[in-house]
């Protein structure tokens, strides 16, 4: 837009004198005037055409200037409106208050000379254009930030993984669109893996870019042998060198390099300035001390030629049924007030983490979500920093339950359903009917999630976690997914004719699977924690006609 460009101005005043005068004043200027005497005509026109400034009288028969402004705002919330009025001289300041109630409204007294009106119009249009320009720039920035978030997300490992002997669950939550928190998982053998957790210094886009560079570097170093992965000092040194060589004086990273072997239950890690790992016994939530000597070292990339000594490395054999947790320091900045001053007490966080650790009804994979969900429910729902929680541990052998990770595609879903059936038949021979019901339920539910709760990207990348457990007289099937929030109907009627109609209605919104799932499960519990859905189905283990139980 240049200073010479024409500006479309709408003038509304029921007095012809005013229209004539202002029209004459603005003739030869860059204001292209459309003058109307009827508010109704003006409203019709505003619906069809965009103006860059509107000048209106206040007191008109029928629709006054403020009512007209309300109408305009419903169509265009930003166009400047100038009230041309003599009311400003009145002792009653109601007029002024009404004008000022809208941040893009102004007034010009009727006795103001031509130059004043033109000057005010120019001023108002400049402000409008500056604001519009800023809005466009912000919209562009928002798009860029959204893209940056997608790039970061694409470099992260899946939110959860269930291997043969170990699992992990993670939650990566930027404070704004992008994050300086890093999480990398590298499978080494069937039983072992390497984790890298990090918190890049600084905030915003700079920290996010450094995180992305670090994450990309780590991805390039994936092919490690088990011996190499155990050498956390060398890995730490390589991370440090990458940072000092590429991001010197720009960023450093507080973080932890962790080697974990589930078969040995061994953990070797080097903590470089981050919050230390914590280990909990799931039997009672008690803390297993990993690092009683408080070993550690300064953050990566902080010192030139940093030296990592053997005495910096923590090595421990953790209990069989345990959960190891890594949290970024953003957890210390969870607050309950907008000003960010009321932080969650450290004792409260400790208490919650202990309590949740011993809750075996939930898979350890979802621990990060549960932790944040509980803290938010206690009022600490205003994070001041990026958040990252990771929980991992050995899979404890439990005869009556099993956990699987399921890729969200039809083939993997079918395989998962079969695994559930095989598990049931293996643990309880003869429960074929129950096995079939469970297979059907799992297949239908997960396909429902696939069809209705996920977008295309998620169908390619997302994982669900599936848990089956014999619980008394029921088979308990739990499924966690990160699809959109969706729920079914509360339940179906007992009356057959109503039930059929309800099922058809459910079919339209939730697919065929919903109806089948509800027919099979006696009870259904749904929960949403942050962006994680949890569905729990209970299938009765009852006697069948052949004399067995199903």
């Amino acid at each position: 837009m240049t200073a010479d460009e024409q500006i479309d101005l709408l003038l509304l005043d029921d007095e012809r004198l005013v229209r004539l005068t202002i029209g004459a004043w603005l003739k030869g200027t860059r204001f292209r005037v459309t003058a109307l005497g009827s508010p109704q005509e003006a409203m019709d026109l505003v619906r069809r055409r965009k103006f860059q400034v509107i000048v209106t009288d206040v007191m008109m028969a029928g629709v006054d200037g403020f009512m007209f402004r309300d109408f305009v705002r419903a169509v265009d919330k930003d166009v400047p409106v100038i009230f041309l009025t003599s009311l400003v001289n009145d002792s009653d300041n109601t007029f002024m208050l009404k004008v000022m109630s809208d941040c893009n409204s102004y007034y010009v007294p009727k006795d103001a000379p031509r130059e004043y009106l033109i000057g005010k119009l120019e001023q108002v249009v400049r402000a409008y254009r500056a604001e519009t320009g800023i809005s466009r720039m912000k919209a562009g920035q928002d798009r860029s930030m959204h893209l940056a978030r997608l790039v970061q997300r694409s470099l992260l490992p899946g939110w959860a993984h269930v291997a043969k002997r170990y699992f992990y669950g993670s939650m990566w939550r930027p404070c704004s669109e992008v994050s300086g928190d890093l999480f990398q998982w590298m499978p080494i053998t069937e039983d072992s893996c390497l984790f890298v957790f990090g918190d890049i210094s600084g905030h915003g886009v700079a920290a996010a870019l450094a995180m992305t560079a670090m994450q990309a570097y780590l991805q390039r170093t994936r092919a490690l042998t088990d011996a190499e992965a155990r050498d956390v000092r060398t890995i730490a040194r390589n991370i440090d060198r990458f940072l000092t060589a590429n991001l010197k004086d720009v960023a450093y990273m507080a973080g932890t390099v962790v080697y974990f072997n589930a078969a040995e239950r061994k953990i070797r890690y080097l903590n470089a300035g981050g919050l230390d790992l914590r280990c909990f016994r799931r039997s009672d939530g008690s803390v297993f001390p990993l690092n009683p000597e408080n070993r550690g070292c300064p953050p990566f990339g902080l010192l030139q030629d940093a030296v990592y000594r053997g005495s910096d490395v923590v090595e421990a054999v953790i209990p069989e049924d345990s959960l190891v947790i890594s949290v970024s320091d953003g957890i210390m900045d969870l607050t309950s007030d907008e000003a960010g001053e009321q932080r969650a007490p450290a004792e409260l966080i400790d208490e919650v983490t202990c309590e949740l650790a011993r809750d075996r009804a939930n898979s350890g994979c979802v621990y990060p979500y549960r932790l944040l969900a509980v803290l938010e429910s206690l009022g600490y729902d205003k994070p001041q920093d990026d958040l990252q929680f990771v929980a991992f541990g050995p899979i404890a052998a439990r005869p009556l339950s099993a956990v699987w990770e399921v890729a969200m595609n039809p083939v993997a879903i079918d395989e998962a359903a079969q695994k559930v059936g095989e598990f049931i038949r293996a643990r309880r021979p003869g429960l074929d009917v129950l096995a079939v019901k469970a297979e059907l339920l799992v297949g239908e539910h997960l396909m429902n999630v696939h069809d209705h709760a996920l977008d295309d990207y998620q169908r390619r990348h997302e994982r669900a976690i599936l848990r089956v457990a014999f619980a008394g007289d029921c088979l308990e099937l739990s499924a966690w997914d990160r699809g959109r929030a969706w729920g079914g109907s509360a339940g179906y009627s007992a009356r057959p004719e109503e039930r059929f109609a309800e099922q058809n209605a459910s079919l339209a919104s939730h697919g065929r699977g919903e109806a089948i799932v509800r027919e099979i499960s006696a009870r259904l519990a749904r929960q949403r924690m942050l962006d994680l859905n949890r569905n729990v189905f209970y299938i009765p283990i009852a006697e069948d006609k052949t004399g067995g139980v199903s």
Partner: protein
Amino acid sequence: MKEGIRRWLTEQFGSDEALIADVYAEYVSSARGKMAELAPAFAARDWAQVDRIAHTLKGNALMIGDATLAEVAVALRAASKAADATAAETFVARLEGLVRELD
């Protein structure tokens, strides 16, 4: 045309006599039309209507530079808000006179 009005219109429209004449003629026509509405409104003691007409007279007078008529219109507005018939009668009569004096 009163000197004050002419001066104001010349400041706004320069030497465009045709435009000045046009605008002034519209002002006079509008003022006479409003006075024709004012008389029955006052007679009926319809103070809301009297106030509205006075407001319009004031606004037009301010636009044309007729400060005197604008002041009387303001006074009439105050009287009508107070439902003061005696004061209003005075101001209505004054306005009638001022409008008659317009060419």
